[in-house]
């Protein structure tokens, strides 16, 4: 693509900033292999990431079914305690890292970033391709741990030593824990390649006129999450390496002198709490690595389908950035009762509750975007509304757990399980589902089936809410988590058997309806209603490509030039209720757009 193809655009009477980065040359696939397998087109890589993540996510989903069966109907599916703990562990790790992180950053990041910032591709397409294959390798290693003697690790997704590498834990004295740690390390390597790409693309490859403060919030969310991940994952990486050394070479980074089943192990002098600090230095930002892209995406869904500009855009951007920064100084709220110096509690409770303020601002601004909007209750909008309810619920219970004295009775109970599933399990998943309905027409050129979609929505939302809302109350009673047997505490105020059965039935139904969704995807991608160009009448650039679905290189001969932010909906004076980002002011002379 030659640079001089831009000359005529620059002479246009609407002022356009100059080109900062020379247009890039793309690698054009020469064979089937380089087109579909070792592909360098970010859109294809995004889909590869998404499919791999969902495939391993199915293992996580089925694990949750099996766990719920054991909790509510023990014996129906025979299982031993060790197997239960392996399910819990693999479920948690798969859902957080291999499904949600990979899907948001690798999947949505790759597909949307170049399209939304007006670039032809990621800046390093080759590294981007390698990034996916390294992720794929990480998934294979993880899956391999199911087939080694002793099976996968049952250490809990937090992998706390000494228990993670001792014989009282499934996989602790075998290969299970080793493969888990190796897989995580490989994941981090793959992610770093992708992550640098996303960040540099957003900073360097935006098209002319696309200033940072004109980026769609989706890009802001993914950008900030990626930066967090680049800082946070190294902590997990070193913790993983150190634990592997403790395990394989007998070093004592995390291992004090211990006596296990009457036998004195050779470790001495290490600190289990050090591991927890490293883990949560990664683990807390990880929550936001999953949440921030969801925040960004849902803002765009709400704005498009309410036909209204996002309320308080600048505040929204600042909130994302501030939340991201603060998320690095709250990690020890996961350790209030871990045995660290109790005086830390004051500091971490304060920082944690401070985060509630920018988070609340985001919620207000979503709701205020609906206010005086012109709301189309499309399926993406329904998911966005469900997200707000779920996220508000989960965010508010965070105020219980963050407030150190309140955390004491609640930590390690089902209250915690309910809280984090609401806030980082269900809420982001609702956004993912909504955004698939939203962007499916761009990816395939067709709509998903509306009727199936509505069934899918209502069952998923009501179902997941019924799973997790009542669960908080088990936590108040003191029902501890990670318990293999249905546990009727002697002093509980009321039997928990019925409520556990209710939750399990809800979980089975909610899980099953996802297969209806997969069916919808498969059938609609061939036979769905044709969508045409920009079916939702959105402003952002990904909908303005000359071809739908966009082809390699995204924007045909000329990159678009951007004249305004991504939210010029219902501008007074304009003839349509939206003005796309690449519409020059001269083309909508009567529109009274405030912010351009």
């Amino acid at each position, binding site marked *: 693509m030659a640079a001089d193809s831009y000359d005529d655009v620059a002479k246009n009477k609407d002022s356009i900033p100059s080109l900062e980065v020379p247009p890039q040359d793309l690698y054009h696939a020469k064979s089937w292999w380089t087109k579909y397998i070792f592909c360098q087109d970010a859109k294809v890589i995004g889909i590869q990431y998404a499919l791999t993540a969902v495939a391993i996510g199915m293992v996580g989903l089925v694990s949750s079914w099996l766990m719920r069966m054991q909790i509510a109907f023990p014996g129906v599916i025979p299982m031993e*305690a060790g197997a239960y703990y392996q399910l819990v562990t693999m479920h948690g790790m798969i859902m957080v890292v291999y499904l949600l992180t990979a899907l948001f950053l690798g999947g949505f990041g790759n597909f949307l970033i170049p399209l939304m910032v007006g670039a032809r591709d990621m800046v390093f397409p080759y590294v981007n391709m390698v990034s996916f294959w390294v992720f794929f390798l990480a998934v294979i290693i993880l899956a391999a741990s199911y087939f080694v003697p002793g099976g996968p690790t049952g250490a*809990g997704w937090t992998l706390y030593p*000494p*228990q993670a590498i001792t014989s*009282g834990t499934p996989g602790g004295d075998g290969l299970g824990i080793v493969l888990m740690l190796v897989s995580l390390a490989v994941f981090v390597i793959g992610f770093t390649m992708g992550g640098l790409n996303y960040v540099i693309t957003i900073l360097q490859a935006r098209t002319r006129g696309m200033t940072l403060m004109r980026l769609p919030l989706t890009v802001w969310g993914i950008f900030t999450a990626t930066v967090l991940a680049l800082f946070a994952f190294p902590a997990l990486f070193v913790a993983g390496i150190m634990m592997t050394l403790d395990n394989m070479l007998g070093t004592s980074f995390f291992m004090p*002198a*211990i*006596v*296990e*089943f009457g036998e004195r192990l050779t470790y001495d002098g290490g*600190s*289990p709490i050090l591991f927890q600090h490293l883990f949560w230095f990664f683990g807390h930002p990880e929550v936001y690595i999953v949440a921030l892209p969801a925040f960004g995406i849902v803002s765009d869904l709400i704005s498009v389908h309410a*036909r*209204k500009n996002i*309320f*308080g855009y600048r505040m929204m951007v600042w909130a994302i950035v501030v939340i991201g920064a603060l998320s690095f100084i709250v990690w020890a709220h996961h350790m209030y*009762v871990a*045995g660290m110096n109790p005086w830390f*509690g*004051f500091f971490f*409770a*304060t920082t944690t*509750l*401070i985060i*509630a*303020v920018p988070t*609340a*601002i985001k*919620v207000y601004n979503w*709701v*205020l975007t609906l206010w*005086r909007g*012109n709301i189309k209750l499309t399926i993406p909008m329904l998911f966005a*509304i469900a997200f*707000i309810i779920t996220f*508000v*619920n989960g965010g*508010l*219970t965070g105020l*219980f757990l963050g*407030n*150190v*004295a*309140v955390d004491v*009775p609640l930590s*390690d109970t089902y209250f915690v399980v309910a809280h984090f599933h609401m806030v980082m399990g269900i809420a982001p998943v609702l956004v993912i589902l909504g955004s698939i309905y939203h962007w499916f027409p761009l990816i395939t050129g067709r709509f998903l089936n509306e009727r199936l979609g509505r069934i899918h929505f209502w069952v998923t939302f*009501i179902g997941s809410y019924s799973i997790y*809302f*009542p669960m908080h109350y088990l936590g*108040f*009673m*003191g029902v*501890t988590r990670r318990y293999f*047997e249905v546990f009727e505490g*002697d*002093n509980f105020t*009321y039997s928990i058997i019925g409520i556990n059965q209710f939750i399990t039935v809800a979980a089975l139904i909610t899980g099953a309806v996802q297969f209806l969704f997969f069916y919808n995807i498969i059938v609609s991608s061939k036979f769905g209603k044709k969508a045409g160009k920009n079916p939702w009448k959105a402003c952002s650039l990904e909908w303005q490509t000359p071809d739908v679905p966009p082809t390699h290189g995204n924007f045909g001969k000329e990159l678009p030039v951007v004249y305004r932010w991504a939210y010029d*909906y*219902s501008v007074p004076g304009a003839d349509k209720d939206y003005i796309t980002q690449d519409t020059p002011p001269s083309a909508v002379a009567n529109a*009274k757009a405030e912010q351009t």
Partner: protein
Amino acid sequence: MIVAVLVVLVTLGSVAFHMWSPWWWSEIASNWVGMDDTIILTFWITGAVFVAIGLFMAYCIWKYKYNKDKRADYEPENSKLEWALTIITTIGVIALLAPGLIVWKNFVTVPKGAYEIEVVGQQWYWMYRLPGKDGVLGTTDIKNINDDNPFGLNTDDPHSVDDILIDADDLHILKDQTLKLNLRALDVLHDFYVPQFRAKMDMVPGMITYYWFTPIKTGTFEILCAEYCGTGHYSMLGYVIVDEEEDYNEWLSEQMTFEETLASNGKSDLIKIALNKKNDL
């Protein structure tokens, strides 16, 4: 319309569930009423926010439903409103944090004169140690642990000799006696948690952690291990029995000291040095 109604139902349904749920905490049996109070306060504040947002959203969905002849408002920013909301939220957060931190201050300041006892966790059972007549717990070292000395007491420490060792899952304590629990784990993490006492703290091998409380009700309360500790985690249970003085003393008189346990195993010579030192004291 239907969507708006359903949003209202989910919001108010949650409130209704909260009010009529039979699943609620058992009556508190320790001094940590402040924790319960802070939870209730948090419920009021967060509940109000939850209901306000849910209902407001339902109102918007109903009132501003799509109409192709209408246009949405165009108002990119409204800094007055944004600041007002920020300030209100900050006030709400302070109202939660301040009482919370006061309770935490109490939690981390062990009252002078608290009776110190030890709880030991290992896969997958509990043991307890009381200081005995001298009122001081003897020092321990993991390297000393063997069949005769399951707690790993230092045999040359004169304070160990009269320590009362309870190698069983159940513990008796005295009503209204303030306790400081010194928590120790021999192998992996555990957590000594009795729901009615509200307090908990992980036990970490290689260090001694602690918390304090005062039991205010007699009764039998179940102990649950609250930190995942391997395959047997779910079965790491036991009982704390809170007694009046008479019952407590009767139970106490049946327990053996370190010296007596060793004697009954014919291993008295192990603590000769300590006994000598003790006589010198």
